[in-house]
């Protein structure tokens, strides 16, 4: 894509002092320390600014502003979540439905992601984590992204959904390809295959119900009628998109930090009860989602005029690193005062999987530290990330003494 094609004229309601060009798909200001380098915006850019690149959109970077916008669905809608805007945007249930339309789906799903429901999965998750780590243990090295962080959430997802184990290989390969795909054609084709596979599963569970989420979802009632296949497909796809790559990347960035912090490794090895704090600080420090909203009603907020049709991007990783809320926000400090952050967003679309995600990274770390208390980055390598509305690290080669 040529830059000039993406360079939209600045609309009249945007004052010149709010314009600041930033390319979310590869700005030169972003380094391999993606979240840390994003923080330069807090210093260098206007408090709320309009980037004319990628079709033109607002960028919201402060905790307090993001928090207000994601709750204010009457003005800031999830109906369109693409930057630049596209024709016929896909409908994701419940992610791209505003209240009250999202409510029946969200409320039907919530019990299955409650603290109680996810803790029932703990023993299974622990066994998965242990297996993946044991596979690499004797080698003294691995690519943490590829060998651990990308594989673990796939197994968790299959367990949650009740996917038969004989499909594990197929599904893992498909998930792998999907998250690596770059072109729209590839993404579209793989997306269809994933939906196809889930549809098979829905059909199987219609015949032979089991104790798993898909069997329960088939029974969902929406506004007093049984849920339709298309709705199920959409919900399953959102869980696929939301539940795997995110955990992979938050865990990988967190371990990239841990690999370089010997003192923290020693503390975690000596006292496993610190692990939940470590996990929370990893999630705070390494947000991986920038969530878009479409302005559907003119309004003035924080001294800025938003007009119907404007796209707004909430930079969640920056909300979680806002120094107005978090002291020494760039520091990885497991002892900091526990305050809610924005890595999981907030409001009616607060990540449905937040309890599960925390548990996954906690269990992975408990099993990891037991086996590999000391490890480091393989020297001399760079860790490239893809950036955009999703932030993803491509590899993380690490080593440990054997």
């Amino acid at each position, binding site marked *: 894509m040529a830059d000039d094609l993406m360079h939209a004229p600045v609309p009249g309601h945007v004052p010149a002092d709010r314009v600041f060009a930033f390319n979310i798909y590869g700005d030169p200001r972003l380094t391999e320390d993606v979240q840390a380098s994003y923080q330069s915006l807090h210093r260098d850019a206007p408090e709320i600014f309009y980037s004319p690149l990628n079709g033109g959109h607002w960028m919201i970077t402060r905790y307090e502003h993001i928090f207000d916008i994601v709750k204010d669905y009457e003005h800031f809608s999830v109906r369109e979540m693409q930057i630049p805007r596209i024709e016929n945007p896909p409908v994701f249930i419940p992610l791209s439905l505003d209240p009250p339309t999202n409510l029946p789906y969200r409320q039907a799903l919530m019990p299955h992601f409650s603290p109680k429901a996810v803790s029932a999965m703990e023993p299974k998750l622990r066994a998965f984590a242990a297996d993946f780590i044991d596979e690499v243990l004797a080698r003294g090295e691995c690519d943490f992204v590829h060998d651990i962080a990308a594989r673990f959430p796939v197994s968790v997802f299959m367990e949650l959904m009740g996917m038969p184990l004989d499909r594990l290989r197929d599904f893992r390969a498909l998930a792998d390809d999907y998250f690596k795909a770059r072109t729209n054609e590839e993404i579209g084709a793989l997306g269809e295959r994933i939906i196809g596979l889930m549809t098979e599963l829905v059909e199987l569970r219609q015949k032979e119900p089991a104790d798993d989420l898909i069997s329960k979802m088939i029974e969902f009632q929406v506004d007093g009628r049984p849920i339709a296949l298309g709705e199920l497909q959409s919900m399953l796809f959102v869980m696929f998109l939301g539940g795997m790559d995110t955990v992979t990347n938050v865990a990988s960035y967190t371990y990239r930090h841990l690999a370089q912090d010997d003192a923290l490794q020693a503390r975690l090895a000596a006292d496993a009860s610190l692990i939940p704090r470590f996990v929370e600080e990893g999630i705070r420090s390494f947000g991986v989602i920038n969530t878009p909203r479409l302005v559907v009603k003119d309004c003035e907020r924080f001294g800025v005029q938003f007009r119907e049709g404007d796209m707004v991007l909430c930079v969640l990783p920056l909300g979680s690193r806002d120094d107005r809320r978090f002291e020494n926000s760039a520091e990885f400090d497991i002892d900091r005062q526990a305050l809610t952050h924005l890595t999981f967003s*907030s409001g009616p679309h607060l990540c449905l999987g937040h309890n599960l995600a925390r548990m996954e990274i906690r269990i992975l770390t408990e099993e990891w530290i037991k086996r590999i208390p000391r490890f480091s980055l393989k020297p001399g390598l760079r860790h490239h990330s893809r950036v955009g509305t999703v932030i993803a690290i491509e590899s993380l080669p690490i080593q440990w003494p054997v």
Partner: protein
Amino acid sequence: MVWIEFVTPSGDVRRVEASEGESLMQAAVRHQVEGIEAACGGSMSCGTCHAWISEPWSAALPQPEEGERSILDFGVHIRPQSRLTCQIQVSAALDGARIEVPPSQS
């Protein structure tokens, strides 16, 4: 002004000033009361603003609605006194109320 006491998971008693019309959750968050996480900011999408409200204060409150009840059904540390503080409006009837924050929200 209405005064509310929150008993935190560490056992501290935090006496905070709340305004009529805001929710108990908002008052707690404004004063950074330990244990009231309120991850969804009051959209009734998380259940992390859970607290225990006992007699006589609970008697002054409207019963929980369906949505609140269904979140509480699947929470942790749930008791008959459990409420979502984001669903409770501060009013003069709550002046002096003592509200206990459970040991964890998950």
